[in-house]
């Protein structure tokens, strides 16, 4: 009964390849999933202001009170108890919730106004202070979570619960790639920082297909996992292996689309080290970003790498810089954090501008929540700590479609509650998508029978922030 083998096995193999399954991550354009539910079908929902994003994520929760939200009242009332009328019974974390004393702590750093916008910036951020007129500083961000893991997950996936796609994965899914040689969504983590841990879920694809997940570029010889050929295999030999594989599979060496993912991998082996190799950058670059940028894995090197990636067509670069979680000894620690990040953050904005890329690149700076106006632990003459504070904190954005020189939102004189123009995390996400030409209510993925969005069922585009 079994029919004779009617197909040569190799021929059969060839003819079972190249089918519907073959959808390489790096293919440009949006063909593979076009027409699927909720995705912008032919291009975008509306004209995009930005094509690319660099998100400078300051992990741990940078204090707004030592950076952008100037509160002289806290210095005047330094050491006095946080008034109940200000706290209004809102929850504290278990770290300071049982403290019998919640002494107000004034920032031990000088503030001054800068630029035409007159934005207040602390002495810790001298470089950022110089570019305030290019920034839109939001001082009225708020979030729902009070602990790191839920808060950072919320910021980057729109939900405190693990398992949703990250912001960058949503964008890769929505916008596709602009490069054949590099991943569309790249993650860079400052090396050797420690502090609150990071996890792959923050750049994961959740229930979206895995090809939309962020690819972490690491400092060192193997920037993408398994990218570097093992010893004994050089580029020529790899080429020969590829051709032998094609022949084995009954394909034309080098030309067949059924080898697309292999060919892409082969190209990445060249293009990724090229982008990571900063030796072709002129002296001026390092003057701008700081000498730190010569050291692989620093924040400055990553900021520079982010620009190089964007130049080569990468859509979304996410930097992570840990170490902002200053429950104690804040003054010393935040000084270090700022020193590591201030110059390069500002340099990135200026560099993009000089290259004419700022107009269609969105730069975002911020963490997962803010910090309390009272001291966690003992307040002394020159030392204090601050606990997590989700009710208000500051971020800044610049570039593609953002109104420069803007200061948005206000907090009360105690720096505890928002008094004007609150911006929720989902609002920020909606605005970011909007700038990229995506309606956040229409970017959806159906999973388990439900339509999921980055912004869940919330979020408003913040028009006042837009140019």
């Amino acid at each position, binding site marked *: 009964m079994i029919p004779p083998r009617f197909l040569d096995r190799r021929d059969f193999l060839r003819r079972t390849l190249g089918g519907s399954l073959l959808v390489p991550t790096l293919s440009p354009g949006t063909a593979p999933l076009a027409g699927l539910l909720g995705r912008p079908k032919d291009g975008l929902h509306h004209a995009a202001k930005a094509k690319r994003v660099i998100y400078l994520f300051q992990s741990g929760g940078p204090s707004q009170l030592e950076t952008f939200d100037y509160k002289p009242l806290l210095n005047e009332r330094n050491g006095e108890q946080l008034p109940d009328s200000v706290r209004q019974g809102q929850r504290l*974390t278990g770290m300071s919730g049982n403290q019998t004393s919640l002494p107000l702590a004034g920032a031990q750093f000088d503030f001054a106004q800068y630029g035409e916008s007159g934005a207040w910036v602390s002495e810790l951020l001298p470089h950022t202070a110089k570019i305030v007129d290019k920034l839109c500083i939001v001082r009225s961000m708020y979030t729902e979570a009070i602990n790191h893991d839920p808060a950072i997950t919320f910021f980057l996936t729109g939900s405190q619960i693990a398992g949703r796609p990250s912001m960058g994965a949503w964008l890769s899914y929505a916008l596709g790639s602009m490069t054949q040689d590099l991943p569309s969504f790249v993650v860079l983590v400052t090396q050797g920082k420690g502090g609150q841990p990071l996890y792959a879920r923050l750049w994961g694809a959740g229930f979206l297909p895995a090809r939309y997940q962020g690819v972490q570029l690491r400092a060192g010889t193997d920037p*993408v996992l398994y990218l570097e*050929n093992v010893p*004994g295999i050089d580029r020529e030999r790899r080429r020969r292996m590829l051709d032998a594989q094609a022949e084995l599979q009954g394909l034309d060496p080098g030309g067949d689309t059924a080898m697309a993912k292999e060919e892409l*991998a082969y190209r*990445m082996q060249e293009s990724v080290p090229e982008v990571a190799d900063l030796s072709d950058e002129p002296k001026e670059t390092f003057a701008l970003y700081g000498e730190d940028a010569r050291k692989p894995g620093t924040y400055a090197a990553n900021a520079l790498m982010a620009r190089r990636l964007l130049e080569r067509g990468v859509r979304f670069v996410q930097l992570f810089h840990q170490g902002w979680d200053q429950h104690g000894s804040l003054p010393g620690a935040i000084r270090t954090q700022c020193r590591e990040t201030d110059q390069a953050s500002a340099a990135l904005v200026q560099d993009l501008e000089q290259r004419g890329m700022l107009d269609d690149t969105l730069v975002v700076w911020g963490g997962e929540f803010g910090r309390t106006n009272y001291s966690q632990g003992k307040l002394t003459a020159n030392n204090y700590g601050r606990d997590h504070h989700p009710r208000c904190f500051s971020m800044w954005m610049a570039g593609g479609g953002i109104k420069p020189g803007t200061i948005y939102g206000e907090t009360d004189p105690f720096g505890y509650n928002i008094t004007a123009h609150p911006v929720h995390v989902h609002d920020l996400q909606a605005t970011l998508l909007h700038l990229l030409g995506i309606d956040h209510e229409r970017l959806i993925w159906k999973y388990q029978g439900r339509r999921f969005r980055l912004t869940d069922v919330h979020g408003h585009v913040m028009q006042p922030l837009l140019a």
Partner: protein
Amino acid sequence: MLVSDFVFVCAALTQEPLQSIDFQRDVRPILSDKCFACHGPDAAARKADLRLDTREGALADLGGYVAVVPGGAEESELIYRITSEDRRELMPPPESGHSLTDEERATLRAWVDQGAEYAPHWSFVPVDSVLSPAVTEEWARDEIDSYVLHRMKMAGLDPQRDAVDEDWLRRVSFVLTGLPPTMELITGFPSELTRGQVVDQLLGSPHFGEHFAAQWMDIARYADTYGYQNDRERRVWPYRDWVIRAYNENLPYDDFVRWQLAGDMLPDPTLEQRIATAFQRLHRQTNEGGSVEEEFRVEYVSDRVHTMGTAFLGLTFECARCHDHRYDPISQVEYYQLSDYFDDIKESGLYSHFTNATPTPAMELPSERQSIAMADAEAAVAAAEAKLSEVLQDQHGLARVVPSDDVEVLFDFDTWSEDQVSLGVGAENAAARMEGFFKKVDGVRGSGIRLNGDEGIRFSGVGAWRRSDPFTVSMWLKLDGPIERAVLLHRSRAWHDAASQGWQLLIEDGRLTAALVHFWPGDMAMVRTFDPLPIGEWIEVQLAYDGSSNAYGMALSVNGESARVTVGENSLTRAIVGGGPGDPSFGARFRDRGFSQGVLDEVRFISGWPGPSWDPAVDLARADLRNARRNRDELRDEIPQLMVMRERAQPRASRFLDRGLYDSPKGPVGRAVPTALLGDVDQPKNRLELANWMLNRDHPLTARVEVDRLWRAVFGKGLMRTPENWGSQGELPTHPKLLDRLALDLMESGWDRKAMLRRIVLSRTFAQARVAFDDPSRAVDPESRYWSYYPDRRLTAEMVRDGALAHSGLLVRKIGGASVKPYQPAGLWQEKSGQVYHPSKGEGLYRRSLYTFWKRTSPPPSMMIFDAAKRDVCVVKRQETQTPLQVLVSWNDPQLVEASRMLATRMLRDSISLEKLGIELGFGPDHILSSLSAFFESEREAFAADLESASALLGVGDTPMPEDIDLAELAAMTIVCSTILSSDLYLLLP
């Protein structure tokens, strides 16, 4: 009747004109997807008081008009609204983003005209006995084939030819064991072994259980770490090994479910039955500082509900956590009624940051040696106890009020120097230091002290007691007023952050509480005074403890009078000394509320049994008892533990949470199963009865979901293509009748899964070949929904690696044990969390991927790249993608390069030609690999001219380089093998 009504899904697929409308098949998918969000089961979200998920609702008078008039489309508001040209009237509203196609409108109109019949959702209707279609063709081997062929014929399709023997063998071997066929099978089949015999061998192989356990790990969200940010290691692999055994021993599915859900509640549960319940503790857990304990505890309970729903019932209960389910008839109240079954264990929302205590409830898993030693040690304790009571006769009770002249160390606070306080007695041994603020005040004798609640007094030289040490502590207090919570004297690192491990005296709700804690709240002994402490006067409070690890050995007294106490908890089994520091302190504790509302004087510590015995025989008996206990405790502390389920004696009566928020509890809702889902039964009273309810013959989902899982294991795709959702928003099965037939057969076989798998893999349906991409049958049946060919399937992450290890001969075929750490690029753990990954040495590098250590926040990268599930939450279907990153793994993962080298070594040593290798790899006798011989030759020459590269390549991996083979030859063959293992020839299932 119901089942037969909606059988022919193919109508929609083949675009036949809609004649007779079927609600299940044609109408519900439209209503559910486009209308239910506002007109469905969720009462709170319902607009215009209209619900369309029930016929009653659709036909209700809405005040002069009716949404649906059976037989009268023109009179029906629904039809008017979905066809209105006025945007303000049109449904669904344009701004909702939903819209109906013309075809959908026509369907709804025809449905209304034909009488607007409703039917309950198919998967909520019990499996009915069904008759198989009469198919006479010789093709069919099993009833399965009759169903499949019947539908194929209706669609004008013919079955695909059978796969050739080599392909069938390779396929069935991977499907049942996750490994390629062994040489014995390859040489024995088909000449000596029938297909049935092959299948029996595979089902009998211990690798069968491994392979199916690997699939279950996604569902059980198994991981070797807790998850969340700190993501510490936890020892839960005994559960994984139980799953392997359960599959290998063919544990009937009903027991498989029952044990995992409620093994602890079975009469006299066995070790295995209790281990199985770890299933419910494998969710993520946090220890992040400052987390609200209750917030996360609630999260864990919810995870158990969601996992139970997804794993066993295929339903999305999580959608009803914050509001009524938008699509399925599951209300929010029902969610919390279900959640109540899973809420009654003594667990904490935080695992311990400062100790490595196993979160409770936990069970002990002693080795045989430990069991014997423990029995001896317990006997010794019992004998020493008997001896002591004998010599004591009626001298003393074991725990009693200690007269105030018994003193070992006394701090009297009467003289001061800087931050040191004076010692009345015992100065040579002990000291006390003020941590910060203090104020000298009048004491009960001389001066006393007042603190601020944040900074306390740190003692040293006394109080570092184990649970076998009898001890007594006392102090004088004067309270300013009623105190809700205050930490008095304790030896512990922290409250939630150390699960209170240590000993402690607290004021809670105005009452004195004493506790010895290993892990709060399930491994501790705790007593509390019945009456509140007096206020505004000096009182002396005291704890005397007899070293028994028992709450009844803890005596509290106030002002020298024995206090009436309630026993809050009596389950202490393990050490109370962890977390550091070893010394006690008073008045403050890390992230806890200290003692600021009162003053303190005269703190006393007494080690050992209180008071002299006046009798050397008593002293001796006491010393013996303490030694016996210490010996037993030390043995016990060494016994590994496993998180499991253990029901509380007193139910917690969990509550409805408004909007799903832990801090918005409303009234208790009791326990019940969802009304729409076999709800018309005696309500299960506990988890065990809940499990039995799921296994009821009439339960509509349990058997269907499992039989579909088995089918999916065999075909890569299920009869149900949305296994993650069997509710209203899920698809209809490709073959509803077949699904029901198999579900029924599974139940009637006594839930025999091996028998079901045997049947499926021996079916003609399974035997079909794959088809070429341009085969005409793909046009009609692109996703093999008719099962008219074997679906395209790539090796899973596990199969890729395990298969290569098997071919190379490196695979260590050992079953079970602690997880291992194969090769992984350096620095991945470190850059995220500062922890360091130390790869295993020796056999740990070559175990099956099931045993690879799973760290949730940094899962094994090569497996993740090949689409493994993340194991954060229960997942029943993996993504299947192809990316260049997978190619890079195939090329450069040292595991696969080393496997290529060892495969090459075997070939050269045993003179295995490329042709023979093709047979060994199960590629058939086609000489398909001979195209590589020229490649081998040219690479050999290239390596011969560059021996340095050859030895560099051969140095990859820990296995020593063979010395008996020519380097260039071996390197070239390694390159050839790597090319084969990177190719789709290897990566695609035939």
